């Protein structure tokens, strides 16, 4: 085959090839290879002066280079723009010559820009353009997904802010309790508010850990739900504070009995992974009938005063609010 024919063939099949002569001088470079060192021509230059062989590291001389036939080379241009390249060489076309086929490898994204490459710079079978297509298409798809995720995240935060459920216990949360209380106040039905505060809960959390604490709170929630009616609202309004809103109750005796049952059940030690958690509870209760000016603040503050009375008098008890308490603090 004539040289001209051979070179035409190489230009079509691997436009980034370089033919290095016996003395190590570049005697031919394919059209894309010509673009590697900017305006400077590769022809007539010593191949190893232009390209540093980064791997295998042992390659220093032309003789070393020849011995790498068929193995993958990592190269770097010693001239601007100093691109990283991959290559493989084979002997020929003439005895003593080697043909090095180069590629951009993973640095293609920078190379396309730096060398202003077009699809015509790559062999028709080269997958480079498909890879660039994929990078671009995937980036666009990722961006759309990222935006979706951030919108969903925003929606989730907004939903949580509007939620009425305490996620740990499944009880109503403070927001929900405020809503129900406002509705009860606006209605004609009398109701009771029971403020329940756990005793020794902090000790459980501190000595047995948060998992034990969470377990206890869930247990308390189950007890409160079991002891109340369907129409009652049971809410967790703080770390270890609970409120029961019980409509249509005017009888303090019923509340006394309910409070007693709750305190008794919560005093039963709770098993958590073989360890015993012991808590107790104090309750302050008020009836809507006791309050002339029925605002949520007044009713909750009455229940609070009753609760502190329970705490002061030794815990594990319930106090029903009495107007005289408003003067005592």
């Amino acid at each position, binding site marked *: 085959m004539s040289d001209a024919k051979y070179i035409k063939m190489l230009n079509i099949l691997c436009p980034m090839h370089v033919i290095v002569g016996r003395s190590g001088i570049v005697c031919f470079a394919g059209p894309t290879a010509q673009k590697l060192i900017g305006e400077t021509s590769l022809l007539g230059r010593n191949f190893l002066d232009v390209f540093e062989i980064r791997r295998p590291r042992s390659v220093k001389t032309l003789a070393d280079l020849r011995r790498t036939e068929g193995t993958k080379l990592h190269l770097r241009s010693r001239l601007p723009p100093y691109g990283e390249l991959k290559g493989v060489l084979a002997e020929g076309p003439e005895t003593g010559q080697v043909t090095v086929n180069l590629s951009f490898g993973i640095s293609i994204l*920078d190379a396309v820009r730096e060398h202003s490459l077009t*699809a015509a710079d790559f062999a028709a079978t080269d997958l480079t353009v498909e890879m660039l297509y994929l990078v*671009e*298409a995937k980036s666009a798809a990722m961006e759309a997904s990222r935006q979706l995720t951030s919108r969903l995240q925003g929606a989730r935060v907004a939903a949580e802010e509007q939620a009425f459920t305490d996620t740990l216990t499944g009880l109503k949360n403070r927001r929900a309790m405020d809503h129900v209380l406002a509705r009860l106040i606006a209605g004609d039905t009398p109701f009771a508010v029971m403020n329940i505060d756990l005793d020794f809960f902090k000790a459980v959390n501190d000595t047995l850990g948060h998992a034990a604490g969470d377990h206890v709170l869930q247990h308390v929630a189950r007890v409160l739900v079991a002891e109340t009616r369907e129409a009652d609202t049971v809410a967790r309004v703080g770390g270890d504070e609970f409120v029961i809103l019980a409509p249509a109750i005017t009888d303090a005796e019923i509340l006394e009995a309910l409070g007693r049952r709750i305190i008794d059940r919560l005093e039963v030690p709770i098993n958590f992974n073989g360890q015993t958690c012991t808590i107790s509870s104090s309750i302050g209760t008020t009836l809507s009938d006791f309050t002339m000016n029925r605002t949520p603040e007044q009713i909750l503050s009455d229940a609070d005063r009753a609760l502190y009375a329970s705490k002061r008098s030794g815990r594990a008890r319930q106090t029903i609010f009495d107007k005289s308490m408003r003067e005592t603090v």
Partner: protein
Amino acid sequence: MHGLVNRAIQRFVSDGYGQAKWDATAQLAGLETSEIEPMLTYEDGLTPRLLMAASEVLGRRYEELLEDIGTYIVSHPNVEALRRLLRFGGVGFVDFLHSLDDLPDRARLAVSDLELPRVELCEHGGGAYSLLCQGAFPGAGYFFVGLLRAMADDYGALVFLEHKGMDGAAEVVSISLLDTEFAEGRGFDLGARIA
């Protein structure tokens, strides 16, 4: 149908006619919220409903509307990414025409659950081609007339396009390529988007 397809309809209506027209379209099509999420999947019936609704709200014939959407999708600056992705299909317009056969597969490479209309290019010699389009909604052929017109412009080619009706289940678009280098066309820099 993939959200990307419905989202394209939303962008077309809101970019071209304003948010109020899109809100009216979404409402007429029975969409719960007026924002389409591009990466979610919607029931198949929504796309034709959106197209009918847009046709009514904008007072445009259905076929005309689809043709305009096809043009919009590759020529409006707001959807430049898509034009670029299509330009990866070929160096010249003829190359690009042949790449259309791979269009659904190319789309799936990027977004695995995106189903695009099936298209098949037939070459008749002398610059005459026909494109058989089979989409999930009627009017895919008109959509391609608009898209090809804009892409020909992009490549600087002079073409004559015509919707030729149905061939079985497929819509037929005839393409007469008069000049591949009629105008300068828009450039395509492989590395333009790579930062």
